[in-house]
């Protein structure tokens, strides 16, 4: 109940107060919230959220997928605005984090320059990962979203032209992120791990129209890693590439995503992917999903491999709110690197945007 109380207090208390002081044409408040609960019905644990290490166990838990975020856009002038997004995640004990803080400068109606702190746009759902209302699942398929660095500080250029009947987007970005006591790595290594991703340079290309969209993503950079104050990796080159395609035909949608992560100096090569099919019947959308994480076995014993089959239902019961129920079955096939073993999870959530 504490969680729900916090969210209600936050929404009913803080937002209207900020709104009352904000002049509509100078400041805009938006937000999102997800209240989720789940229980492992077979097995011991289920890692629902890799970046924030949101674990479910055999007791009913509200923490792993519950999130709240408030975004404020302050307009400096017609071309410039300042954007801040503050989030609180159950998986992080409801600590307040600054996920986004950047200046947005409109060069012309198609080109925008952004500088500051943003989400790292590696995967299709990376930059709206926490806004569960925008997708059918309770969380994006876990096997596919196993990144330890989710944000970066840097510069980003966004170009959004129209190509005939297609909407296009090209996003070029560069920056770095220093993660002290990284949550995911510190949990997996059972030690303090400080991780730095630096000299990152990435490009995202999107093309979409009513029935189809495709997204290509590439990023390369360097990695430093310190475990228990000992530098174990420095200036290690890493690369990421991915392709996502989404098809929409009347009420049917088919979503796919495949990604490749490489760190040759450490002999690490990982493939991730997912496929999901959904069919909307009025306000109800049932869906089926399969996702996989597959590391090419290496001499160091790296053999992480897990896959998940999910079945779920989304109900858009009221404008801007959705109720979801989902059943996930994860198979953990890693012999040396096992995450949590096989498990089945039942979870429910209520997602909203405001």
């Amino acid at each position: 109940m504490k969680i729900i109380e916090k969210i209600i207090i936050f929404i009913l208390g803080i937002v209207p107060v900020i709104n009352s002081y904000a002049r509509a044409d100078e400041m805009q408040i938006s937000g999102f919230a997800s209240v989720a609960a789940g229980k492992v019905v077979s097995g011991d644990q289920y890692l629902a959220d890799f970046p924030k290490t949101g674990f479910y166990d055999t007791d009913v838990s509200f923490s792993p997928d519950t999130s709240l975020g408030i975004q404020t856009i302050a307009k400096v002038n017609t071309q410039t605005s300042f954007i801040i997004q503050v989030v609180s995640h159950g998986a992080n004990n409801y600590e307040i984090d600054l996920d986004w803080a950047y200046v947005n400068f409109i060069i012309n109606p198609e080109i925008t320059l952004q500088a500051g702190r943003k989400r790292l746009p590696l995967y299709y759902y990376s930059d709206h990962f926490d806004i569960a209302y925008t997708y059918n699942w309770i969380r994006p398929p876990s096997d596919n979203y196993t990144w330890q660095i989710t944000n970066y500080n840097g510069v980003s250029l966004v170009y959004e032209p129209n190509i005939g009947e297609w909407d296009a987007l090209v996003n070029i970005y560069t920056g770095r992120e220093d993660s002290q006591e990284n949550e995911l790595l510190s949990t997996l290594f059972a030690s303090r791990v400080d991780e730095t991703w630096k000299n990152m340079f990435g490009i995202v290309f999107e093309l979409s129209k009513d029935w189809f969209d495709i997204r290509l993503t590439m990023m390369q950079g360097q990695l430093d890693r310190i475990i228990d104050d000992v530098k174990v990796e420095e200036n290690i080159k890493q690369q990421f590439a991915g392709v996502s395609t989404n098809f929409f035909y009347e009420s049917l949608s088919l979503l796919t995503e495949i990604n490749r992560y490489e760190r040759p100096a450490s002999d690490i090569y990982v493939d991730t992917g997912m496929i999901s099919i959904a069919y909307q019947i009025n306000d109800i959308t049932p869906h089926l999903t399969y996702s996989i994480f597959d590391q090419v076995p290496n001499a160091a014993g790296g053999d992480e491999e897990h896959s998940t089959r999910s079945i779920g239902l989304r109900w858009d019961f009221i404008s801007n709110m959705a109720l979801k129920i989902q059943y996930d079955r994860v198979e953990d096939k890693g012999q040396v690197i096992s995450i949590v073993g096989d498990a089945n999870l039942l979870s429910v959530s209520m997602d909203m945007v405001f």
Partner: protein
Amino acid sequence: MKNIFDIYNNKKIILIFLFILNFYSNSTYAVKASGVLVAAKESRIQKVSIIEVRKIFIGLPASEPSGIRQPVINHSDNEVYQIFLKKVLRMTDKGYKRKLIKRIFRQGSEKIKTIYKKDELLEYLRENPDDVSFMSKENADNTAGIKVIQQLW
């Protein structure tokens, strides 16, 4: 022979009746089905391209020469809203909502105002002459205080 002739004549009459009915129904539909971009009568907004209209309604900034400050989604007539989605935005209601939400949180786009009552929309446009919305041509022709900027479909 007489009977056959009668049937023939009746067929003709039915065909003529159906033709007239079809003509009138199509004309009525054409008026109802035409959609226009509107602004307050005193607005200085000039004619803009359909591509520009689509851009501003999916959250991209308006180009300076258009003089448009921001768009307003007219949800007072669901039929017109659905046609606007299909003909101008070329997406479903769910797809449009998803696109707007993603743009707000990914790129810090401004929220697009949605108005659910015709009277409120008219009052809003009169108070904000640099803003635009859409409605059926029939509705625009019969409403005082607004002007048609551009035919959309």
